[in-house]
């Protein structure tokens, strides 16, 4: 193992060591003081984030091409570590309140992030698969972590079974691609396809199976069935992490695989991806209208947002637009992660121990009793819809621009129409908060307040200076 190998994975190695040590240190921390474990876990994430940021602008290939450190991985890893910090911030008080506070909770979050980061750096299908399992298994356990609650257990087992099933699809796809091209390394797969040595049909079938596997992970239609049940049943702090983290990692892996391993079959795959994107937007947004439970509504909303991000993949077919499509996609992921963590923090503030307080009707009167919280919720709902002045709008604008440039007019049209549909159920939350009478009970917990406050400010402020953020996203290119 030479220095470059070590350097390319330095943040991941540090975080893995930190999580393993955290498991041991946690043994000596009193059960009543598990907050210390949370602080230590957050410190590990912050340290790793510092290391990741210090690697900005560098390109290092490690382990004989298995992993790569480049602008893309630095950007995505920073976003993932930010999600991890937010996940700990929303969980800190909530899991204490629900009586599920355990040191393992934080270690599992760290292990999952290790998998996600490895996924963003993977340059070999074997690493992609192991990283996928590495990020999923802790999530299965986290979904079922409240095992005195049947719904949480149901969420865990459902997520586990479908996740294992989708993992099987990925392995099958990897095997077919390996059979067709004789390699699992992205660069060699691309070279083999470009020279025409590979059996095109086998490669296409393999790529399709990998797509199906990741479709499950990011909740794209028709592989979205698990999302509402799992999001509803899992403890809300886990759902928040799952919504942002798993999506970011899944999409970054999809982008890397399809941009660097299968660039020459992008033309064949783009229409399929466009149809999946359209279906995902339609199903997610239409099904969300009927929801009465806010967690289920946000689950369908997350499906819809997966559809918007998938639109970026339709633009892949045009090589000139590839970099723009990737920047637009990861910019949208930033916007979604910030908005969604803010929303979930407010959902957690209103949730009661017995699982009540999750109906949308429970938000009635929030505008009067908690004006600041209601204002923040308004900002998040506007951002999810894509109404100015929020980050959600900017994200959608960049996405629609690439889609239109890629000549997928019909897809952009569906995107705009479904955004209009989504306005109905997002704005309904705002209407209920301000127009209906009610006495909502909220929990005041400093880290929760910090999360939704900071996310609301970020959603608005970043939308005013989108150019600099987009410039950073544009610099996040794959090498």
């Amino acid at each position, binding site marked *: 193992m030479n220095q470059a190998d070590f350097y390319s994975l330095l943040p991941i190695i540090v975080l893995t060591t930190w999580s*393993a040590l955290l498991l041991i240190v946690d043994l000596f921390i009193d059960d009543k003081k598990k907050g210390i474990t949370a602080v230590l876990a957050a410190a590990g994430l912050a340290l790793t984030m510092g290391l990741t940021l210090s690697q900005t602008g560098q390109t290092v290939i*490690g382990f*004989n091409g298995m992993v790569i450190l480049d602008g893309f991985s630095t950007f995505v890893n920073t976003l993932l570590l930010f999600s991890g910090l937010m996940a700990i911030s929303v969980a800190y008080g909530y899991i204490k309140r629900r009586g599920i506070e355990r040191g393992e909770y934080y270690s599992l979050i760290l*292990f*999952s992030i290790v998998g996600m980061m490895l996924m963003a750096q993977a340059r070999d299908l074997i*690493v992609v698969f192991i990283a996928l399992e590495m990020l999923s298994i802790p999530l*299965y356990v986290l979904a079922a972590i409240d095992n005195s609650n049947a719904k949480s257990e149901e969420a865990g087992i459902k997520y586990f079974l479908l996740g294992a099933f989708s993992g099987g699809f990925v392995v099958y796809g990897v095997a077919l691609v390996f059979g067709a091209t004789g390699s699992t390394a992205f660069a060699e797969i691309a070279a083999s396809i470009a020279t025409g040595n590979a059996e095109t049909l086998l490669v296409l079938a393999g790529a399709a199976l990998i797509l199906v596997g990741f479709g499950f992970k990011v909740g794209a239609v028709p592989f979205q069935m698990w999302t509402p049940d799992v999001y509803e049943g899992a403890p809300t702090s886990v759902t928040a992490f799952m919504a942002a983290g798993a999506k970011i990692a899944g999409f970054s892996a999809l982008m890397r695989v399809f941009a660097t391993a299968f660039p020459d079959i992008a033309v064949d795959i783009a229409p399929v991806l466009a149809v999946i994107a359209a279906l995902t937007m339609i199903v997610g947004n239409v099904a969300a209208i009927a929801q009465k439970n806010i967690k289920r509504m946000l689950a369908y909303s997350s499906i819809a947002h997966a559809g918007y991000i998938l639109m970026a993949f339709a633009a892949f077919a045009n090589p000139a637009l590839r970099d723009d499509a990737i920047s637009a996609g990861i910019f949208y992921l930033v916007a979604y992660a910030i908005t969604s963590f803010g929303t979930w923090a407010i959902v957690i503030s209103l949730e009661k121990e017995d699982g009540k307080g999750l109906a949308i009707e429970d938000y009635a009167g929030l505008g009067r009793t908690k004006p600041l919280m209601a204002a923040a919720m308004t900002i998040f709902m506007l951002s999810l819809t894509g109404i100015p002045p929020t980050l959600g709008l900017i994200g959608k604008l960049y996405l629609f621009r690439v889609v239109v440039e890629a000549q997928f007019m019909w897809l952009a049209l569906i995107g705009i129409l479904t955004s209009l549909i989504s306005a109905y159920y997002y704005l309904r939350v705002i209407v209920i908060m301000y127009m209906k009478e009610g006495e909502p009970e909220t929990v005041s917990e400093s880290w929760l307040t910090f999360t939704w406050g900071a996310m609301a400010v970020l959603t608005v402020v970043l939308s005013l200076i989108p150019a600099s953020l987009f410039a950073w996203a544009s610099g996040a290119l794959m090498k």
Partner: protein
Amino acid sequence: MTTMQVLFLFFAAIILGSAIKVVTTKKMIHAAFWLVVALFGIAALYAMLNAGFLAMVQIVVYVGAIAILFIFAVMLTRKELLDKGAALNNNKTIAALISLVFFGGLLLLLTNWSGFTKMAPDLPEGDMVAKLGEALVTPNAYLLPFEVASVLLLAALIGAVYVANEARSE
């Protein structure tokens, strides 16, 4: 009888004996351990056939992964590690008949079989198991996936113990 034949009979007896114990023993955990013995015996047969790689895969995959999985599942899910029901049920006559027919069919096929007409391609020179082992710990080969898999197993272990332990304490 050559030494090889004696060894074969020895291992065959172990495999058959432990395989019978797998289905007759009442204790689930004993069944899992007898299965491990049977699988080790099969690995020994592979080794005798000069298929070192297969022998190793047999131990790693079947003994190392699948049998351990059985033991884990039994220990994590059952309070009592006993199977209380009868080992035989009403279908035993039919089951025995079907098994006999299959056994007869296989016997017929194998006695009339003329042997392999097509041989497997020769493997490159050298010790395959050693090469595989080297590949797993070489940074330029598969060191990274190998190491990450070990971290993955750690996370899975913590998760499994956590979920099962809590469920039992209620």
